[in-house]
């Protein structure tokens, strides 16, 4: 007996409200179901979904012959559905979901910039992903736009973007970036401050826009896996897994159990590496050099074992369509387990020292508070969401193999400050150690890769993976000859970047780096 399905009740409710929705078979999208919605009902769908407490997870579009398809993915308690509507290519106008879901604001502007769909009641008319590499009225994701485009001989810096201004005496502005002071990705932050206090922060991103969705078109499955592994280098395992999962569902390829086991091992290793590195970097941002060097040391040791076991320090290109590229030699298993146990101990001891320092607590507590209300409004994912009451993890709530046979501990906190995000990360590291231990206890045998089957033209797939930043959603459609026709990877950073604008409010400017690092959104992952 399965739990009651929140989707059928919701669909009944929509029908009762007069919406003409229709659930369709789309096996490639499983566990999500496909719901076709007339364009005229799109705005109401958003409002009804909000009332019924669905999370707006992602939005993306796709050029067709005479129409443009627009999709929005919703989730509630681990049940997913993809709402799809078609608008005429000649007059692509649709109602916006942004009023009900503030988290839809930037994704809709991205669709507008790249596909030319107008969201009629969208509150923000400004560009988002487009700077000046292509002109207004040109849409890179339209089929008739060549991947090479027609860029100017030299693309000028972004200009004529109207940042919102705060007024009043003593208000001053601090522009930061795109080239930042540290070794970090580029983006622009516009602060309005009074004295040390931030009145308002506005982000301007898309500096690392590399046309990933466009240059995916025409690739074969292996080529797409390589590209997906470079959407955000720190999440190479999780993004490659999500894209491969989507392609495998579209092509009906069954991945052997040993390959799934290896994927999970790598994904947990990636989670630990990033959390360990970030905790160190957060301590560095409050000038606690001891903590920084200790965690940097642990990260390096961890990465070396990844290299030893999988041949790459970040495990890039280790996940391939149908399985994984290299097997784990049995001689590596015992050291891997030992290292996980040793690291757990070391982190425990370090946290005893760190927790004991009032100066650390003073900088982390009550700093950069993201309230549960805001986190829920934006649909914040991963440790950012979980530090602000969003109790969700794909591995537990919509488990994919091998997590369907494992117990995943999901930490939760409600304080929403930098301190809470650090605590959640430390607990997630520990949960990953448990998973690594459980995985290493029962290694399945057999092949590590299934033969690839060419997917039929038009087939589509959806990949959902809990990366270290949270749920990664990856959509793939194949065209003729087994070549990719559409690829959209939604990094969880889309949901946490807007949160920084909110959580920095009222904090002092010098606390921005630690607030930012505690969230650590991926620029590359959101800029695409």
């Amino acid at each position, binding site marked *: 007996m399965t739990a009651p399905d929140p989707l059928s009740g919701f669909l009944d409710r929509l029908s009762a409200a007069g919406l003409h929705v229709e659930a369709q078979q789309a096996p490639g999208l499983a566990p999500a179901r496909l719901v076709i919605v007339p364009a005229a009902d799109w705005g109401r769908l958003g409002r009804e979904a909000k009332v019924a407490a669905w999370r707006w997870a992602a939005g993306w579009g796709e050029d067709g012959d005479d129409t443009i398809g627009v999709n929005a993915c919703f989730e509630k308690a681990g049940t997913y559905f993809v709402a799809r509507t078609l608008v005429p290519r000649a007059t692509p106008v649709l109602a916006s979901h942004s009023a009900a879901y503030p988290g839809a604001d930037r994704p809709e502007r991205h669709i507008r910039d790249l596909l030319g769909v107008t969201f009629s009641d969208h509150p923000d008319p400004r560009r988002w992903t487009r*700077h*000046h*590499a292509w002109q207004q009225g040109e849409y*890179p994701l339209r089929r008739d*736009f*060549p*991947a*090479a*485009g*027609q*860029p100017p001989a*030299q*693309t*000028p*810096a*972004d200009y004529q973007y109207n940042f919102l201004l705060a007024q009043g005496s003593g208000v001053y502005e601090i522009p930061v970036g*795109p*080239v930042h*002071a*540290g*070794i*970090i*990705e*580029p983006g622009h932050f516009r602060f309005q401050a009074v004295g040390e206090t931030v009145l308002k922060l506005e982000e301007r991103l*898309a*500096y*690392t*826009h*590399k*046309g990933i969705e*466009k*240059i995916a078109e025409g690739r074969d499955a292996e080529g797409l896996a*390589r*590209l997906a592994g*470079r*959407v*955000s*280098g*720190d999440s*190479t395992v999780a993004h490659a897994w999500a894209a491969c999962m989507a392609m495998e569902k579209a092509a009906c390829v069954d991945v052997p159990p040993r390959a799934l086991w290896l994927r999970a091992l790598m994904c947990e290793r990636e989670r630990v590496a990033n959390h360990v*590195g970030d905790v160190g970097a957060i301590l560095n941002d409050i000038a606690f050099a*001891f903590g920084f*060097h*200790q965690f*940097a*040391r642990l*990260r*390096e040791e961890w*990465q070396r074992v990844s290299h030893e076991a999988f041949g790459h*320090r*970040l495990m*890039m290109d280790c996940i391939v369509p149908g399985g994984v590229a290299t097997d784990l030699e049995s001689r590596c298993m015992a050291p891997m387990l030992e290292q996980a146990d040793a690291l757990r101990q070391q982190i425990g*001891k*370090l946290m005893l*020292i760190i927790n*004991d320092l009032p100066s650390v607590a003073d900088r982390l507590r009550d700093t950069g508070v993201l309230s549960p209300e805001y986190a829920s409004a934006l649909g914040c994912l991963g440790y950012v969401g979980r530090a602000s009451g969003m109790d969700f993890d794909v591995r537990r709530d919509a488990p994919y193999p091998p997590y369907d046979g494992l117990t995943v501990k999901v930490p939760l906190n409600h304080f929403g400050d930098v301190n809470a995000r650090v605590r959640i990360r430390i607990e997630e590291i520990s949960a990953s150690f448990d998973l690594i231990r459980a995985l290493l206890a029962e290694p399945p045998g057999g092949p590590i890769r299934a033969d690839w089957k060419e997917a039929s033209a038009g087939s589509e797939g959806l990949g959902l993976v809990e990366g270290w930043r949270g749920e990664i959603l990856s959509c793939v459609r194949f065209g003729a000859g087994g070549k990719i026709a559409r690829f959209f990877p939604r990094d969880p950073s889309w949901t946490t970047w807007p949160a920084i604008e909110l959580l920095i409010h009222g904090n002092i400017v010098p606390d921005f780096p630690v607030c930012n690092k505690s969230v650590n959104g*991926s*620029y*590359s992952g959101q*800029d695409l």
Partner: protein
Amino acid sequence: MLRILGKIQRLGIVTEIVPASSEAALVDIGEQLKARVGEQFAGSLAIRQVDAGSCNGCELEIHALNNPYYSIERYGVHFVASPRHADLLLVTGPVSRHMEEALRRTYEATPEPRLVIAVGECGANGGEFGVSYAACGAVANVIPVDAVIRGCPPTPLALMRGILEVIAKRSSDP
């Protein structure tokens, strides 16, 4: 505080005589680097890292140069916050068109004589991303480049070797 000191003392020094790996050619790369930096940069080589559109993988390994294992600062190599303080730009790519002008300006803000190293497959030749409506590809398509460090991403050791090679080459140039 006592506990911190205790931890530091018990752990000792993990910093390696580069490298711990078996690559014989690299055995004294660090000492060579230090010697070159000493000769040519009065003991201090200032690097400004510029991410001109990378996937962030290269940055992770550049970060690792500062961890206690590589600790590149012990050779006089350090990362600075402004191009105006830099001898060398370490640029990752592919250069996105949205970063093109920012990269040019950073280059122009760097005092001469300046060195530029393009890092990673993307910086060297565009990598998986190549040239498109959104990307200019290799760093050399936008600013003059003295050397490239290949790899996706290059390992910290490859980065150290690449930095050494470019400053060694500089000294042998007339």
